[in-house]
């Protein structure tokens, strides 16, 4: 087979919705795009534990604490599923960590915003996990097998995350005036960053067309964003909260909500590392990695020692 026929074979599979598996031939750019996207996704799950972990000790009841602990543990698990999927493409775990720690790889900008009150934990579950689900459900049918399988697992677990977040918001919104204000304030601060989670407008998204062609992506950023806004606006009204956008208006003709302009300067600023918590998050990751080095070394040394001891015994017995 020539490069040409490898390519044809690959294209035919994509067109016929046949999944690509790790040992199949794939174009270099397909591999690179997947490594970039899956590892960013994994990093986002891992860094995403930080803003919420911050509130585990301060959750207002034992029930909330147990739930938040389970959610944060899930995020760790999701990071692991995704790192494993990326590893099948030939990058190692350590290389990915290194890219994260040196700032070469990005993670979702949303986690560079601070969690100031308990209501922020509600807003994150409802909005941030809600936006993530909107993104992730179509990825269950993405063209790369290990990525799709990881996403099926993630989506199964993610829906409790959104529901527990909405429940927190609902409880606050039905509470005292101060609690309701707290819920609205959290919605005000998390609304726009959540909407930006879908990434730049289609016209400014350099990877979208190719990713759609490869069936890595199934919907464009703007399609998913619109879908998210349409359902979330209604959810907010259900509990007496209002999304902080004066231009929000139902458009009968389009069958969608119209919404105001997005502050893309802020988005790019946070992506470039100037968000409120970029440094704090990265420092926390690096510290966890460096402080854990002796544990990793010790476990490896221990297993080698045991292996050697066992081999020694076998030699003696022989």
């Amino acid at each position, binding site marked *: *087979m020539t*490069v040409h026929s*490898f390519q044809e074979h690959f294209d035919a599979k994509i067109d016929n919705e046949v999944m690509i*598996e*790790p*040992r*199949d*031939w794939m174009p270099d750019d397909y591999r690179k795009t997947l490594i970039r996207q899956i590892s960013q996704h994994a990093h986002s799950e891992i860094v995403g534990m930080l803003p919420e972990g911050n509130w585990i000790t301060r959750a207002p009841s034992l029930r909330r604490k147990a739930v938040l602990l*389970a959610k944060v*543990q*899930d995020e760790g*698990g999701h990071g*692991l*599923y995704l790192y*494993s999927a990326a*590893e*099948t*493409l*030939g*990058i*190692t*775990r*350590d*290389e990915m960590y290194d890219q994260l720690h040196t700032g070469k790889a990005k993670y979702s900008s949303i986690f560079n915003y601070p969690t100031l009150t308990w209501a922020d934990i509600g807003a994150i579950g409802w909005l941030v996990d809600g936006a993530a689900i909107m993104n992730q459900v179509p990825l269950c049918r993405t063209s790369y097998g*290990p990525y799709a*399988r*990881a996403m099926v*697992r993630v989506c199964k*677990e993610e829906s409790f995350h959104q529901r527990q977040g909405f429940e927190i918001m609902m409880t606050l919104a039905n509470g005292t005036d101060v609690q309701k204000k707290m819920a609205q304030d959290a919605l005000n601060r998390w609304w726009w960053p959540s909407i930006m989670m879908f990434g730049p407008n289609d016209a400014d998204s350099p990877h979208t067309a190719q990713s759609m062609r490869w069936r890595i992506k199934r919907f464009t950023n703007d399609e998913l964003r619109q879908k998210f806004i349409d359902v979330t606006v209604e959810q907010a009204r259900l509990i007496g909260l209002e999304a902080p956008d004066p231009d929000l208006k139902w458009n009968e003709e389009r069958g969608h909500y119209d919404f105001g302009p997005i502050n893309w300067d802020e988005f790019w600023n946070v992506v470039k590392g100037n968000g409120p918590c970029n440094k704090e998050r990265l420092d926390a990751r690096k510290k966890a990695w460096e402080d854990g080095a002796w544990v*990793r*070394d010790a*476990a*490896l040394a*221990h*297993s080698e020692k*045991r292996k050697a001891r066992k081999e020694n015994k076998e030699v003696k017995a022989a």
Partner: protein
Amino acid sequence: MNQFINKNLYGDYGDKEQATGASGTHSTAGEWPLWEVFIRSKAGLDHKHAGSLHAADAQMAIENARDVYTRRMEGVSIWVVESKNIHASDPYEAASMYEPANDKVYRHPTFYNLPDELKHM
């Protein structure tokens, strides 16, 4: 053909060591070995591949698999196998590998034309 095949050595499960050896650009020194995890979801069913993880030894791999893959009662039994010990068939030999089964429809019960009146067969 060989130069293309080199790119295909990235292991799905297994042959990873060989893959990284072939490309020569990756360092796994200091990384815990990679393990493949198989889970039996309930008694009576097969163990099924669930995913992979890193662990220093088999015991740690099983404990990590419990935490990563069975947080919602997905399993009653776990197998772990170090990924380097798994050997996979070559996708480029798939055509010739499975071709012999193509023209043997008589191996299926629907191949046989029997009278409608025949019951329970």
